[in-house]
């Protein structure tokens, strides 16, 4: 092989329009209004994020309940150099957070300032964006104390 292969930048860039259907629409409308809704399962436990069905059994669910805007970190990882797509430009943590009133933890971002502020079991609360649009990125978590 005399010369290396030709190479060139290639970008996939597209804005998808995701229709939400009734359950997700209710959830994201509430988020825009700065409220968080979880989904109650038949056994009384609450899923966050909500789902239209029970992930274990497949049965349909529709009873949504409001959750607190604060909860507990069940695991976390520090992101020292965020990529441009990621939710914060400064270093932050991805964390699994279990909101008060929910029985499941979900993935989100914590703007903690520095890695040593993060710990499993710490309390976090939501900090809403100045303008909420009805998206999971309408908030990030910050340490509660």
């Amino acid at each position, binding site marked *: *092989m005399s*010369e*290396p*292969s*030709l*190479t*060139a*930048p*290639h*970008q*996939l*860039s*597209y*804005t*998808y*329009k*995701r*229709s*939400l259907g009734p359950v*997700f*629409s*209710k959830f*994201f*409308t509430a*988020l*825009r209004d700065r409220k968080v809704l979880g989904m109650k399962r038949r056994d009384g436990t609450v899923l966050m994020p909500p789902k239209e069905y029970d992930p274990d059994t497949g049965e349909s669910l529709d009873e949504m309940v409001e959750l607190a805007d604060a909860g507990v970190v069940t695991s976390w990882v520090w992101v020292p150099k965020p990529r441009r*797509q990621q939710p914060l430009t400064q270093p932050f943590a991805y964390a699994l957070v279990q909101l008060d009133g929910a029985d499941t933890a979900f993935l989100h971002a914590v703007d903690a300032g520095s890695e040593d502020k993060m710990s499993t079991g710490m309390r976090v609360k939501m900090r809403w964006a100045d303008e909420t*649009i*009805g*998206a999971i990125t309408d908030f990030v978590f910050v340490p509660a104390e």
Partner: protein
Amino acid sequence: MSDDKNDPVEIFRGHVELDYQYTAGVSASRFLRAVEQGKFLGQKCPVDGRVYFPSRGSCPMHAVPFGDDSTVELPDKGTVVTYSIVRVPSENIPLELPYITVQVLIDGADTALGHVLDANLDDVRMGMRVQAKWKPKSEWTTSMANIEYFVPIDEPDADYETYKEHI
């Protein structure tokens, strides 16, 4: 997202943006470097001697790699084996509507090349003889876009029998 702050949120706009560094591959690179020099390279299958153009790494029928000695230079003239007139806009395609897409069987090749033809819409036909219209040499790069389009040439149409197996 919603126009009115009180309407329910029914749509979420999810932006996907991923960057790649695309690599053309060994064979396509050789082909494109020749195009940069204004030359068409085909490759001859070692099994049946058929000439593939544009050239590629291997014969798709026999799954054998084309060796360096398989390269053949081809002219930039050929025959339109089939075509379409496109009147639909597409966000990826910068051409003005309507435009003619053609499958051109380059003389000496056994596979047709997809490209664009600059001709009167009423004139285009199967069997039409055409030639590449190159951009000015100063603009040549390693891209098939060096050929702005194909243009009709003053030669009698090819006989259907000579190209029908390449449609």
